[in-house]
């Protein structure tokens, strides 16, 4: 069965192209151009993975993340960010994000992370809370963030 993905980004063009590329790779993709539109969608539908932009007007990615986790603590969420920073990345992981990837993202890496996150059983999570993803996800949790942060340290940010 196809992995269902909800993409959330305020840049409509980015959203459309990424949706098309993930669809070509066999995923079933739904798009939302704002945090509010996404929250409306998740009330009616379930998605294996949500890919969420960190920087958005009105409600930013961290606020949307908090609300998504409040609605479903087991929801698997990958954050996309223009710039990874240690504090924001760690904060996102604490709030319940499964991973953080830096834009521009390599599609192979994104697909791999989506598949890893989607295949994780829903149970007791990395932070010990019931309903949080666990298992393979826990082992691979935050791989994208670690990679982004390695780049960050190399560049001296």
């Amino acid at each position, binding site marked *: 069965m196809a992995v269902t993905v909800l993409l959330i980004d305020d*840049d409509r063009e980015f959203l459309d*192209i990424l949706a*098309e590329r993930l669809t070509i790779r066999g995923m079933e993709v739904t798009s939302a151009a704002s945090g509010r539109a996404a929250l409306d969608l998740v009330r009616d539908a379930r998605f294996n993975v949500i890919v969420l932009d960190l920087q958005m007007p009105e409600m930013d990615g961290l606020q949307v993340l908090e609300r998504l986790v409040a609605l479903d603590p087991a929801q698997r969420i990958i954050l996309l960010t223009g710039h990874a920073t240690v504090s924001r990345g760690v904060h996102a992981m604490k709030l319940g994000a499964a991973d953080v990837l830096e*834009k521009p993202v390599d599609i192979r890496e994104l697909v791999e992370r989506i598949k890893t996150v989607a295949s994780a059983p829903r149970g007791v999570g990395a932070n010990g809370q019931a309903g949080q993803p666990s298992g393979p996800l826990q082992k691979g949790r935050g791989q994208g963030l670690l990679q982004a942060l390695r780049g960050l340290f190399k560049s001296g940010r």
Partner: protein
Amino acid sequence: MSSYHGKVDSLGLSFFGSMTASISHEIKNALAIINENAGLLGDLVALSEKGRPLDPERLQTISDSIRRRVQGADDIVRRLNRFAHSANQPVVTTGIRDILACTVALSERLATMKGVRLSIAAGEEIEVQTLPFVLENLLWICLKNIFLLAGEGQQVVLGAVREESDVVVTLHCTPEIPVEQLETTVATEGQPLIFFLRMQVRADPHNGRLCLHMPLRFIE
């Protein structure tokens, strides 16, 4: 006086950091779209090798998008370059509307993130003698504090009028925000810049605006 210079420099460094961080974010976003478009071209070529015909119209759309985003990124880099040079610019005679336009362009992304719309009121250009970077820094302090007070849908119109030997820069906020509170915050946070530019900050609650009075000629 030297401690004031130190404070002006320190505020300037913080301003420079905020603006370049925001600009680099805009560049990253442009690169992300170009990256996805390039990736999509690769995907379509790979699909054509498997028998799906290439749609010339689709290719044209992708090419147009890449061109548009490259142009957008080039505009951002030009803005960054102009801003970087303004940091070590001496006192110059320039149009106040040029300075307002630069400030709006620099702050636009951060304003959008806060749900605030920025614009410039129509009016004649007024020549002023000033340090553009320091004035832009003060205007940024005003805008940053408006963002903190503003709700979603806030509009800020920047304008300038001549009053005898002064020029008055106005920041008109709709819906109204507590401009007296804004005046206090800006006067405190921007105090070294206000002193340096010999300016005065006054709230005009009757018209829902903050007014910055500055001399037409820079006073050493």
